[in-house]
């Protein structure tokens, strides 16, 4: 079980935070381009599944799987989008984990800090270390990372 990387977007598409623990292959483009691509994909997929859905949707987009990795997605009602890429062995989806990241790390250390402006990329060292600590403590996190 491996956690590869993490993205956090706000409601207008700004990438607030990116972190990687074990990324073996780069996207072949500048980071800024990659974030735009990721956000655009999330937006398009959400819109697509709502339109194509044969029944009324409850939660919308949850995750997608490929043979090598799984992308987990969680969006709050306030438009914040959390993305986590893990290996494909992870069962189900990690929305609860992403919700915990939201409530225990983002809300506690960014929202409640009046010095952190909400629309700007996160530069708080406290957030970085808390997130890193949290992800490393996840049962799905592997010991053998690069």
């Amino acid at each position, binding site marked *: 079980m491996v956690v590869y990387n993490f993205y956090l977007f706000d409601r*207008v598409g700004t990438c607030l935070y990116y972190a990687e623990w074990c990324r073996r292959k780069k996207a072949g483009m500048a980071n800024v381009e990659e974030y735009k691509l990721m956000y655009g994909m999330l937006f398009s997929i959400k819109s697509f599944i709502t339109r194509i859905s044969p029944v009324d949707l409850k939660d919308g987009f949850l995750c997608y799987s490929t043979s090598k990795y799984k992308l987990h997605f969680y969006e709050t009602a306030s438009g914040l989008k959390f993305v986590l890429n893990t290996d494909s062995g992870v069962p189900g989806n990690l929305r609860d984990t992403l919700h915990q990241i939201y*409530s225990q790390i983002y809300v506690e250390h960014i929202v409640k800090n009046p010095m952190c402006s*909400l629309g700007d990329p996160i530069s708080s060292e406290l957030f970085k270390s808390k997130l890193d600590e949290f992800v490393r403590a996840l049962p799905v996190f592997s010991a053998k990372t690069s």
Partner: protein
Amino acid sequence: MSRPNVKGLDPKKVSGELFTLTYGAIVAQLLKDYESDEEVNKQLDRMGYNIGVRLIEDFLARSGISRCNDFRETSDAIAKIGFKMFLGITPSVSNWSPAGDEFSLQIESNPLVDFVELPDSHSNLSYCNILCGVIRGALEMVHMEVTSWIVQDVLKGDSITELRVRFIRRLEDALPVGED
């Protein structure tokens, strides 16, 4: 052996009186700085807005609530979960407009106004205006534009505090550049 906790004191909780006094001190200082009641009302609303914009995240994180399907659900979420979570009171939702886009929140015991008396020289002051701003800011973050104002005020002789909230329009997330 650790020392037993002083009975009933949760280190994260602040006394309700301290809260009321702090709010009163803020309003008093604003009155000194701005002198005009109208200006202070605007400042309280703006402060409330800034609080609401962040408060909504704490609310969503702790309540785990997902998007409300209609305005009635929203009003229940504000009264029964929001107010309860942050002020420990549960206002009643009432006086719905026929179109269902406007409602009242009636607060019987408002912690903000404990011990407060409004002098005659400040009869235009909406002491609890910060609550209107908080509701406006919080709902804007969940894609609803609303206005909110005070209808009944215990400091002006009424028996309860009543806030009215009107739905203006739905806000959509901005499309990413290049999407149509």
